[in-house]
């Protein structure tokens, strides 16, 4: 099958066109694509610097992933004592060492681990943890446990990287509605879930008018917000769809990437985005009841998606530029409950993945004998230490400024 490039006739490459769009030139307020080629040279020069940076992809596993059944401490007899029914058998695990093994569904990530590209961080949590999904995740989103912040940690990181807010599309959020983590003071995150719906449907006679539906002085905060989003929508919709349209024609159709495929598409199109935030949809991680089947499936989907995503980065030639960070809002209680599941808990397992990562186990493994707060794991690593590691160690921004205080980072990146 031949691939038809819609721009092949005018001597503009797709990559160049996307850069133009991404830097906001040539687009009407409502997303009608203006005349492109004559502004080309100037626009692609302007955005070249912005696309050279390192990229962080955050993959959020909402629902409270059961870390003990993800990285399984099979060498500790207490594990089986706490989980006589739902404990995973040694023979089923993908072993790391004499102590730990990966859940059997996670072959994709295990392979990357064996290649030295996955850091496993155990015992991640915070003091006085909340057992509410929503509260705990809002703490994770704002990096403000038992407190709050108007802006999210990714939004604040964008501010630290680009204090003037001058760069468009610094943050992409693959979601139905904006995740609190990306809320930013100056940057308007690009939020979408279905690239093909991301387009104003207009009849030809309407096209010349939409741009004249001018912006105006806002009557209040809600109005100001809708006006801002209108502008961001106009800047982004055309370029996102162009990137997606091209991507689907080149990707390996057997790869199931969950929503990471949209990230891969934008990275391939040289989007200027440095921060991607992808909350998992339809999460099965909240495993109160009959945990095994949903947990097996969910881990397999996620692990395959992550491995597939990095295969795509390999194909595109961007593996050295991309790091992925995986977290949940909390782990689960150590003893199983009476419904063959587990209830909301405390410390969780995080993953940091990429070529730049020094693979291995990080953090102090929480003890299974010294349980706290009603049968829970004691957290040994503050989650903001991992954030600081991403912000400072990978993105090169000032983590203490973003997080409001200095946190000891983990030495999990290659020098």
């Amino acid at each position, binding site marked *: 099958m031949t691939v038809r490039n819609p721009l092949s006739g005018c001597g503009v490459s797709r990559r160049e066109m996307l850069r133009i769009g991404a830097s906001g030139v040539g687009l009407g307020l*409502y*997303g009608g694509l203006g005349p492109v080629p004559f502004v080309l040279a100037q626009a692609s020069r302007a955005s070249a610097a912005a696309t050279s940076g390192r990229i962080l992809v955050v993959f959020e596993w909402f629902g409270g992933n059961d870390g003990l059944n993800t990285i399984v401490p099979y060498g500790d007899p207490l594990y089986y004592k706490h989980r006589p029914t739902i404990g995973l058998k040694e023979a089923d695990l993908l072993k790391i060492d004499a102590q730990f093994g990966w859940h059997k569904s996670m072959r994709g990530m295990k392979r990357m681990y064996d290649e030295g590209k996955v850091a496993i961080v155990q015992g991640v949590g915070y003091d006085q943890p*909340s*057992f*509410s*999904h*929503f*509260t705990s995740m809002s703490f994770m989103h704002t990096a403000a446990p038992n407190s709050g912040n108007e802006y999210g940690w990714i939004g604040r990181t964008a501010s630290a990287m680009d204090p003037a807010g001058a760069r468009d599309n610094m943050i992409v959020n693959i*979601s*139905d*509605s*904006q995740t609190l983590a990306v809320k930013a003071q100056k940057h308007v995150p*690009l*939020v*979408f*879930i*279905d690239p093909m*719906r*991301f*387009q*104003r*449907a*207009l*009849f030809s*006679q*309407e096209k010349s*008018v*939409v741009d*004249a*539906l*001018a*912006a*105006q002085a806002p*009557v*209040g*905060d*809600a*109005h100001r*917000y*809708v*006006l801002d*989003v*209108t502008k*961001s*929508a106009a800047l*982004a*919709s055309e370029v996102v769809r162009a990137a997606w349209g091209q991507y689907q024609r080149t990707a390996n159709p057997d790869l199931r990437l969950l929503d990471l495929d949209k990230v891969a598409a934008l990275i391939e199109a040289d989007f200027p985005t440095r921060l991607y935030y992808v909350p998992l949809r339809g999460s099965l991680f909240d495993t*109160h*009841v*009959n945990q095994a*089947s949903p947990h097996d499936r969910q881990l397999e989907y996620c692990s395959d998606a992550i491995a597939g995503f990095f295969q795509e980065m390999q194909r595109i030639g961007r593996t050295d530029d991309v790091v992925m960070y995986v977290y949940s809002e909390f782990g689960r209680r150590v003893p199983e*409950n*009476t*419904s063959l599941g587990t*209830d*909301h808990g405390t410390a969780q397992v995080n993953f940091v993945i990429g070529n730049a990562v020094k693979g291995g186990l990080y953090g102090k493994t929480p003890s299974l004998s010294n349980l706290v*707060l*009603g049968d829970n794991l004691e957290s040994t690593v503050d989650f903001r230490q991992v954030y600081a590691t991403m912000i400072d160690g990978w993105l090169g921004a000032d983590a203490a400024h973003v997080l409001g205080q200095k946190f000891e980072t983990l030495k999990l990146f290659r020098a």
Partner: protein
Amino acid sequence: MANRAGWSPGPAAWKDDLTPIAAAEWNDDRAAHLLMHAGFGGTPAEIDALATAGLDAAVHSLVHYERIPNPRMQPFVESGLWDPTLKGFPESRPEATDRAEREGASMGIAAKPSGNRPVQPVSDRFFYWLRATMLETRRLGYWWANRMLQTTHPVEQKMALLWHGHFATHENKVRDYRKMVQQIDLFERGATGNLRDLAIKVAQNPAMLYFLDAQYNVKGAPNENFAREVMELFTMGVGNYTEQDVRECARAFTGWYFDDLAFKVDPQKHDGGAKTFLGRTGSFDGVEVLKIIFAQPVTADYLAGKIYRFLVRDELSPELQRKLGHVLREHDYEVKPLLTAIFSSKDFYSQASYGGHIKGPVEHLVTMLKQLGADAVPGVPDFNQGTIAMGQHLLNPPSVAGWAGGKAWITPGLLIARGNVARDVLVPDMTGFRDWNFNAGTDNVLGQRLREGLDVGAATAVNDPSNLSAFDMSALERDERFNTRISGYVGWQQAARKLIPTPRRAAQIDLSAIVFDSGAKTAAEAVDCLLWRLLRVPAAPATRDALVAFLTKELGTDTVDRAKTYMEDALRLTAHLIMSTPEYQLA
């Protein structure tokens, strides 16, 4: 039109002031503001009636609606998809097929005694019900949307929609549209009644009991799911109770369960022992625990704030929230006095409340239809697909926390979707439309292959059956107990054969008559007529000028009388452009 008051937000100083506005401060613009926030907006005639009635009578007629005849409200007509063998429907496909392997039958269907795929009919049955309840729930969404559009009690429907998002339960997990019918009924009846009574009824509602795992909450092994959410999301908000309170609360609710559509208590499974909950000790049950929760002042503040944010505006000062909570407490959690206070107040008509609310997608679409004078929710475009595209799937809120609302309703993608849905309503694509209820998606290919005579193995092959991979070849030879891919397809077919089709008629709209009857003589007056009818935040002068130029060009004349026989299409495009503005998203 000439006599209409202009846009009339009250002074900024009215913000947070709950004293009523004076009778002389009432006008038709404020009546339009009231009807938009209290209900789903209305036609100029409905607005004029409220304006003429005066503030007190207008608010009273909206809030005390019980005696107003409501002739178009009819019970939901079921397709007949359910039968009693589906009672106790298995939680998962493995549970369904394991039950058949163990007991020889499951969900009223026996396994075959011999042959390949002996458990296939049971697996098919499982998927039949998943598809059936999903499809019937789409019809239920239609039925409810029509109630919102056709009711003479708009406050009742608006509040029912609030409670659906507040006591959020999604059919996706409940998997029984009948329980969702019960729930809508509960939210309508309790829409503006006593909140304590409503919370107790919700706690005993089968959909909620299932949704928050009540069946697993038993003496000696409490499941905290419901106990936590009832305090965190339904009544008090986080930070007003301890983990100990959650555990004690869960004990109080032990033994509560449902038998099909009936609430039951199993005394054997109820923990009747002493509990210490929010500082009180006693052998409380669930009802007593809820009464203790409603004795906490914070509960009134929390719920009053929720009602206010849903109806009026996103931003709410702690001071105003306390005042509203006070009104609710003073009236023992009766909702009507609180609504009357809000709708009469200076705060409600202050500048901050004008355009401070982003319409939710269901509210937005129903309002749009009312403004356009549509008599029924159209079949094209599909109502559910339209609101899903805008971020709200009725009867399927994303989690127990409901929809975030406010600014979360607007992202670049969702904003664009709003304009596109408006276009589909105004200019429906009748010949391009495909009914998603009769479209099995990726399973269509499978059905096509079976009808072409391929066997199950080849039909379910991942690749093209004429060019099978080694993986598919090995699958062909596999002896299996059942094939779930086939079941997905067969289940959809079986459900669709019984399903009552949704009528696919377009919205009956006559913008020409609306404009002509308004007395508009020029294109500019026609645009003003539409702007007044559609917008609650005025458009910029430049926007109006652009629309006038557009309409004049499309009509080929500036004169409405000259264009009256052919102006419908151009008026609809003008309405679409208005609905694509940022201002149209606000109320």
